[in-house]
């Protein structure tokens, strides 16, 4: 059984009303298939607008796919959304909180939703935050007074309170300083080691992808271009007589997609 299994998953968005003549339909995710093994860290790379977050939203039951099937821990997401929700949590780029409430109030709200008594687990929650480099005295500070990086750390802690078997991390380190990035990265490794958590990770940080991911999927314009270990991908694009060790992920990405990872995605509008 796989932790995550996607089969021919597609999602389009349209703007304007269906009767409107110049209504545009945009294929955000186009027949994507892949599997993530249990305990694997699976990286999803792609330029802006290539469909990574859309895919993650479908895995999180927040967006219904137009076609295709998704299974999480063997459970079909369309048939058992509630059981799937029990298995997952997500960290999004934009840490969403009740900004007027304190970090603790936000976390205890989340904990309760997952059947966890916040009061009895306060120490444990504080421990997670400390591991992420956020001191305990920050817990009672209101979210709006926190820097973006601190908010992101609270968001990561929130996703981990219930220790879900599947973690969806949508650019968890974007906007963090180098030290915080390192802290988050080593925390992700630790979580995976201790709990055999299966992790789907998107990032624009090539070094992070190289460091964390067992396998990497390259997305471009809603389609999955290649999937494989760093070595497999490297061998695919290696030119004759080229030194393997000088070929970084950034260049591999460019050769696979014909685009720079930093490029704004072309709109693939039909």
């Amino acid at each position, binding site marked *: 059984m796989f932790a995550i299994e996607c089969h021919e998953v597609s*999602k389009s*968005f349209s703007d304007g009303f269906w009767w409107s003549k110049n209504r545009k339909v945009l294929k955000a995710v186009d027949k994507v298939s892949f599997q993530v093994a249990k305990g694997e860290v699976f990286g999803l790379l792609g330029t802006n607008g290539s469909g990574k*977050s*859309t895919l993650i*939203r479908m895995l*999180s*039951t*927040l*967006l*219904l796919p137009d076609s295709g099937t998704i299974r999480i821990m063997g459970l079909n997401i369309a048939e058992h959304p*509630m*059981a799937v*929700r*029990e298995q*997952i*949590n*997500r960290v*999004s*780029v*934009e840490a*969403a*909180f*009740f*900004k*007027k*409430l304190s970090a603790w*109030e936000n976390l*205890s*709200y*989340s904990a*309760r*939703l*997952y*059947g*966890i*008594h916040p009061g*009895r*687990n306060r120490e*444990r929650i504080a*421990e*997670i935050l400390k591991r992420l480099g956020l001191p305990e005295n920050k817990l009672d500070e209101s979210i709006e007074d926190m820097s973006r990086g601190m908010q992101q750390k609270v968001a990561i802690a*929130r996703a981990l*309170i*219930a*220790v879900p078997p599947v973690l969806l991390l*949508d*650019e968890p380190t974007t906007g963090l300083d180098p030290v915080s990035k390192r802290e988050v990265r080593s925390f992700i490794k*630790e*979580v995976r080691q*201790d*709990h055999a958590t299966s992790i789907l990770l998107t990032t624009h940080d090539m070094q992070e992808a190289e460091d964390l991911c067992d396998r990497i999927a390259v997305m471009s314009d809603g389609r999955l271009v290649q999937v494989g270990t760093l070595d497999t991908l490297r061998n695919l694009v290696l030119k004759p007589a080229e030194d393997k060790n000088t070929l970084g992920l950034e260049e591999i990405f460019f050769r696979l997609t014909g685009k720079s990872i930093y490029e704004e995605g072309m709109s693939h509008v039909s």
Partner: protein
Amino acid sequence: MFHSRRLKIGGMRELYAVMAFVERQFNLCKRYLGWEIVFLFYTVINTLTIAFIAVGMQKQGHAINPDYVFYLVIGALMWGFLGIIFHEISNSITWERWEGTIEQTFMAPIQRLTHLGGVCSFAVLYGLLRTIIVLVAITCFFGMGLPKANYAGAFLILGAASLSFVGLGLMAAILPLLSPEKGSQATHIMEGVLLLVSGIYYPVTALPEWLQGFAVISPATYALDGVRKALLEGATVSELLPTAAILVLMSLVFIPLGLGIFHLAETYAKRAGLLKRNG
């Protein structure tokens, strides 16, 4: 490294989640305590203004029932109570849409009934509390109470009415789900219709006949009728039971209907990708 003791899925777990919503709404309320007081003050002023309509008519020589002041006050209070339930429910959705937490809430392993039940429980408690404070303020202001009032009966009716109001609130809550910018304001339209047809400041018989039909299907009509009988005429609990029964029956229609409509709207939002704010 760490482990968590999670409750098993089931009734206890859902009850626990109801608490999450009540606590969250309470915390948000606490954060705006100053504003709460300002708005409470405004509600008192507003209710007084309406009460003075009756006083003014007496001064102008119209022969009116002395109970008329409280007839209007009860209308204003009930209108306020209904409004609070509506706004608390729809604001809870609007708020989550603004903050972006709606995705977090919608991907949690809890039933929608639990989510909305939690929000509604808070709305009803909060509405009752505010209504009682305003009633006390008004009675103090006029220095006269309700000598015949049967408060237990009034609570019975309010409790039964809350259930139907919650059903209507759920229907109103789909508006901010679909549009956080305009949806919240649009709930005023539903309220306005209820205000018009339910006999809040005048007997239903004052309406043209074709509108009276709508009064029959508005729970507010029965709620007002019951509360007025309890507070002004001192109707006993057993006399009020039929009215309470109608309200409960209505809630048996409105709550499932509200949940059903909310579910449809949620599915539509998930298909069209409306839940996302950014990222």
